[in-house]
């Protein structure tokens, strides 16, 4: 893993590259925050700079995208997060890139064209959390039925399930066959 100082250096480099590419320094150069927790480096970036950040990291050696997964940070805003886990196979380094978007505007640019592994994984995040990936070739529900309403893994979606039949509530609950 890049250690804490290495992480800060990476963040600095990203900010510089972001400004150099003319995307302006209005949003802190794309990198909002760095976090170093339990020997693991993480960068929090703005949604708009996701693709550029990942490409820059690919240039630095993180050529393997291990995972793309979503998180619901309810009740903290912005609620929906997307995490990209990158891996550098030659030096066995991992780094996480995090993005957070609010539920009201859950758009994140898709990285499927540059990182083909993100295809099904972004579809799963769309299915489970409702994050819309702009530019994804085929954004449909992947795990739930196609006509399902709602995004199940959001924290305010109920877990659901059947009531468990115990002796004390069996007479009051309708049996399946009735």
């Amino acid at each position, binding site marked *: 893993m890049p250690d804490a100082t290495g992480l800060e250096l990476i963040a600095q480099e990203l900010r510089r590259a972001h400004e150099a590419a003319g995307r302006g320094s209005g949003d802190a150069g794309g990198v909002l925050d760095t976090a170093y927790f339990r020997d693991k480096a993480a960068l929090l970036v703005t949604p708009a700079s996701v693709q550029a950040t990942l490409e820059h990291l690919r240039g630095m050696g993180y050529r393997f995208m291990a995972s793309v*997964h979503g998180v619901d940070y309810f009740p903290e805003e912005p609620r929906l997060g997307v995490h990209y886990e990158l891996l550098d196979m030659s030096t066995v380094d991992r780094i*996480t890139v995090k993005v957070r978007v609010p539920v009201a505007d859950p758009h994140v640019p898709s990285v499927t064209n540059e990182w083909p*592994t993100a295809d099904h994984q972004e579809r799963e995040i769309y299915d489970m959390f409702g994050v819309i990936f702009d530019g994804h070739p085929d954004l449909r529900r992947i*795990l739930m039925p196609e006509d399902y309403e709602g995004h199940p893994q959001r924290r305010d979606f109920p877990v659901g399930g059947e009531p468990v039949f115990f002796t004390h509530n069996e007479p009051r609950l309708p049996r399946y066959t009735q």
Partner: protein
Amino acid sequence: MSTPEVRRPSAPQVPYREMEESVELSHIAHEGDGEQELLTLNLGPHHPATHGVLRLLTTLEGEVVRDVKPIIGYLHTGIEKTAEDKAYWKVIPVIERMDYLSYYFNAMAFCGAVETLLDLEVPPRAQYLRVIHLELNRIASHLIWLATGALDLGAISIFWYGWRDRDRILDLFEMSSGQRMHTRYIQVGGVMEDIPLGFEQRVRDFCSEFPSRLDQFEALIDKNQIVLQRLRGVGAVDEQTLLDLGVTGPLLRATGNPWDLRKAAPYSSYDHFDFKIPVGTVGDNYDRYRVRMAEMRESLKIVEQALDGLPEGPYITPDRKYALPPRHELATSMEALIHHFKLVTEGFRVPPGEAYYPIESARGELACFIRADGSSKPARVHMRDPSFVNLQAFSAMVQDSYLADLIATLAMLDPILGGIDR
């Protein structure tokens, strides 16, 4: 024929047929300029050759597969959502049932992530015990792959042989934990229980006998003309495409890339053991088969070394805040009683943080991402399942091959729908 109407529940008015037509045909270039018709064949979720409920929308031109779109979700169980509702200790049985052939690996990934968050140290005896069970599980998983793969190819007798040996491994699991499958043996901080007397001897018996069984399998399959013709040169994808698609595990190693987390980023004392990583050369189905057979032998070596070097000590972390105290202490010590009560009713609390813990499972990189928010229940558990990512490489593997090769490639891909659909 007129059938009298029976009471039907009102079906939702959704255009299923249109929604199912998700095969993009425009990118398929036709040589011969539209001479052949493209047939869309639905290898439906219920099919004897798909490993679990996988639905494949194949576009066939004659017998040649031009495109395949896997449709998954038929086993989606909401495991990750259920895990958010339960205390950390209670998540372990739920998360184990995800990839249902490598249950120890699921539990290991989850417990490793929790231990990372807690900064908890696992005693060396527990690490060795974990390794023994993980490698035995790897062998069991590969045996089922071999059994069902050979069944798909038509070599049905291997099915019985594979299951016979797997039953022996499950006897070992039953001896150490009481359950054949989904044993919840791996707990946060170590393992659930120490191994009983006689376990070591039984494992050594198994290890001494199993190589000859593998020899028997190889004698039957390796140079079999039918197997060679069906697997050699079929389904090869180059290494860079697989890396782009995020494929890990035996599929990647078959192309020659020796990426294995047990060697690259050793966890749970894997660096104490001397074992090799089998790699292939071409990356076709035959290499995948050979890589897994060789992996079984290497796993045996690891098990034997772990048994030889099994250190003495506690089998679970002595920190009573996270591990149940032994029962005999409950009669004498008040703190033990309180710890026991807190752990069983509420569970331990994990300080806020996020952890991503990758391990090398039988199918590739299995990782667990946990976000803890300080309470006794995880706020988000995500399992990065290798089969889910490996399935994306499937269409690249079967491009322009026959339908029979599609079945063989699916067998060698070793997808487990429980992990894919979670």
